[in-house]
């Protein structure tokens, strides 16, 4: 009896979720102490944190799926830039309408991811290499499509002068806040992506396959898991989410910036790892990633409202990442 209790409480203390929550709680307590004259206690601060972290969080959703499948996706930031440029071109310059712009961008993103997945599954290219290639390639396409300039409402005419157009309604909609101004639309999109990831990973057969190939690819293959198509699915989902993030990024900047998203993949990986999903694959969950997203988001917000200098921010972020990961370590 007593033994059972100790065992279950030990189990509770050592569960990945509890340990991930530990890091988040530490960060929030820091925020309560260094609350910047009460700014941390206002709801607006939390709402803005959730907005600012949403784009990274959406990338982290795709990253979680890929990492559980035993891979890694370095191309998310570049695919984000590519779709941000594409979204702005289609909806601002070509004026094809919002629905078509969104659908085409999501398809483009999913194709980028699926193409990486194809090389990884079919030709056994390492995920690191295949997505590195996609990272460089997609950045190139983004620069080519945009001519190296930001794609905005200032449209260059053949004679070199500029004409200034109107911003399409869809940008305002995605950039807005809903529910009485209490939550940003991009945060709702993040929650949607988390939900989709959860359904895929926990409710569908494909999800079990993804865990299986991440755990032991050979064993999974021998027991009949379609490894190749599952890899295309996992990386395709990451590309799809990257495209969603790109649309959010463009809407929040009112332009498509071919330089957007540089090093975002590192933030996304940090969010996944801080949550406790291991890079070995086969283990982890989207809820852990949500905790990771909040931990990084709160950390950045607290440093920002206290106007901490860049040098100290980088040092503190490094310390928090390593501390959170150590907290996750199995004894």
């Amino acid at each position: 009896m007593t033994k059972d209790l100790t065992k279950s409480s030990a189990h509770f203390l050592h569960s990945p979720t509890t340990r991930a929550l530990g890091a988040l709680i530490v960060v929030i307590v820091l925020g309560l102490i260094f609350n910047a004259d009460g700014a941390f206690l206002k709801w607006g601060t939390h709402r803005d944190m959730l907005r600012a972290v949403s784009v990274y969080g959406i990338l982290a959703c795709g990253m979680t799926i890929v990492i559980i499948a035993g891979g890694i996706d370095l191309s998310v930031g570049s695919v984000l830039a590519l779709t941000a440029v594409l979204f702005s071109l289609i909806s601002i310059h070509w004026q094809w309408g919002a629905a078509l712009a969104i659908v085409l961008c999501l398809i483009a993103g999913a194709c980028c991811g699926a193409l990486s997945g194809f090389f990884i599954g079919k030709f056994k290219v390492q995920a690191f290499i295949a997505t590195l290639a996609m990272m460089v390639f997609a950045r190139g396409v983004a620069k080519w499509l945009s001519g190296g300039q930001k794609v905005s409402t200032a449209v260059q005419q053949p004679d070199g002068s500029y004409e200034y157009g109107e911003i399409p309604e869809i940008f305002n909609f995605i950039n807005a806040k809903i529910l009485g101004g209490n939550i940003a639309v991009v945060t709702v999109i993040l929650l949607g992506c988390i939900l989709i990831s959860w359904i895929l990973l926990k409710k569908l057969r494909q999800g079990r396959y993804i865990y299986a190939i991440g755990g032991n690819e050979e064993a999974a293959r021998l027991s009949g898991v379609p490894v190749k198509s599952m890899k295309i699915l996992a990386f395709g989902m990451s590309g799809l989410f990257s495209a969603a993030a790109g649309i959010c990024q463009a809407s929040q900047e009112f332009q498509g910036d071919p330089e957007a998203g540089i090093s975002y993949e590192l933030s996304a990986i940090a969010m996944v790892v801080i949550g406790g999903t291991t890079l070995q694959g086969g283990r982890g969950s989207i809820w852990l990633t949500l905790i990771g997203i909040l931990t990084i988001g709160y950390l950045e917000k607290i440093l920002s409202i206290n106007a901490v200098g860049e040098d100290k921010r980088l040092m503190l972020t490094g310390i928090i990442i390593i501390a959170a990961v150590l907290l996750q370590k199995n004894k």
Partner: protein
Amino acid sequence: MKTLNILAFAAAVILFTIGCAKKDTPQGDESGSESWKIGMSQCNLGEPWRVQMNADIKAAADEAAKIEVVFKDAQNDTLKQQAQMEEFISAGVDLIIISPKEAAPLTPVVSQACNQGIPVIVLDRRILGDNYTCFIGADNRKIGKAAGEWIVNKLDGQGNIVELKGLMTSTPGQDRHAGFREGINGSEINVIFEADMKWLEPNARKEMESALARFEDIDLVYAHNDPGAHGAYLAAKAAGRANEIMFVGIDGLPQEGQAYVKQGILSASFEYPTGGEEAIKTALKILNGKKVDKEITLDSRFFTPANIDKGGRELEAN
């Protein structure tokens, strides 16, 4: 066999891409023999401002007959830029324009070109010593100071300001900061919040959200570039406070700062001229054997809603 196929495919793609790229480089005049070849080494094309610089050079070169400009992009890599300069020297171009990534490592290669009789125009960022033909650039400190003085005037000498700084490890960031502080010196203007947004709009928006959460009373935001000012505006707009705050930025590119001023988002944008047109004009003088000044400081303009339709106003020299 499979490997061969893949290799053949890759080769075809690469050939196709290079074939496409070739078309973009301007061909020399048909009359040919008299045409000058200018090498332009750009330190990176990641910043819109530098894309604009190349565009300005290309436009000026297209206008002047008998000039062919070969553009190279060093992708923010000093060693790559050194190699490009060596390529220009061995190709025997008539003149080199370089916008160097940094001074010390690129000084020797510029000297090498000069010593071999190739004139070199250094654009925007400096190199060490004086073994070059001509330096063309604008003065960030002067522009920062002008922005500061304009703000003092606009706010009647008092108010609360948020300063969103560019990368403070870069000289433009340091100069735009120092010049600004000089400009507001002696007034009752307080900088109540400052943060490094690293030239990036999403960062500026994030930092501005924090400033808004902390301070009820903000009169003006001074950002070291226009995207930063725009990001701050978006944050204020989302908080319903855009009408009570003024936004001032630097760079004044037609598709960014000037557009924002026109749309009523920025109260002012201070131009940081690219010098592309000036570089080609100077190059022509050098190639025609005329004498040019060793130092050319570019005149700068500023744009406000009142003067934007007239193309901005010159900053007064002081």
